[in-house]
């Protein structure tokens, strides 16, 4: 786990350390196990829905990408911080075995009701640099005061 971020240490415009994952079929099967989503779209290369969707290979669960954004936001908040909300839209499909990178940037800092709040833009990018899952997050960070 990285060092704990404190409110005073983060700056608007600051980038989050990128988080990269290239899920193979085993990873997607483990995600099916963890999430309960056993849609064969994600692990069966003979699944009849692939062709009508214009796909030549299995794709990553949207919620898997959401969870990767979640990992990055959770790491930014640290054990002493708290994630208030995070959300994404699913704009593009990602095939398995390809690199997906989570990037983020601090967009605002404010204090509200005694809490120190940081807002972020977060998203996943495919290997071509396209944003497939754009989103935002709001995090409460501890203060050094």
């Amino acid at each position, binding site marked *: 786990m990285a060092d704990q971020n404190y409110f005073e240490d983060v700056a608007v415009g600051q980038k989050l350390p990128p988080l990269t994952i290239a899920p193979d*079929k085993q990873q997607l*099967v483990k995600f099916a*196990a963890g999430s309960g989503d056993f849609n064969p779209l994600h692990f069966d290369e003979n699944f009849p829905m692939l062709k009508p969707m214009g796909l030549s290979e299995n794709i990553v669960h949207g919620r898997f990408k959401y969870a990767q954004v979640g990992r990055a936001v959770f790491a930014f908040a640290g054990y002493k911080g708290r994630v208030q909300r995070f959300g994404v839209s699913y704009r593009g499909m990602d095939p398995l075995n390809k690199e997906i990178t989570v990037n983020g940037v601090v967009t605002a800092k404010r204090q509200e009701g005694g809490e120190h709040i940081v807002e972020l833009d977060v998203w996943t990018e495919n290997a071509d640099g396209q944003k497939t899952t754009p989103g935002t997050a709001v995090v409460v960070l501890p203060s050094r005061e």
Partner: protein
Amino acid sequence: MGEQVYFEDVREGEEIPQLKKNCSTQQLVLWAAGSGDFYQIHYDKDFAQRTGLKGLIVHGALKNAFLGQLLHDWVGEQGQIRRFGCSYRGMDEPDQDILCRGIVTKKRSEDGRHYVELDVWTENPDGKKTSPGTAIVTLPSRA
């Protein structure tokens, strides 16, 4: 679940009701989830073929579990499975029938309990015994 079977109703040499299974690839992934065995030969065809297999195969432990289900269905709520096991001699594939069968080999009463021993096995569509095994159960008595 049918009616409870009693020790007196059972004859040596008798076959117990069969259980037919047919695993989709989704079923194999569900088993990976339930068992924690994520070995790729059960859902990743490329991986399976790289290890020298023709294609995906059914987990041995899943076939063992099917035999457990065969026995569980037969002994009923008042019966108990004491022990069962099998060897994984032949491979079974997804999307293919797996027939679970059992034959009573012995009946005995001992220390107030009524034991039934069985041969159990899974069979592929060619009639080959892919997972031969044995079981010992206890059944209630009408006495």
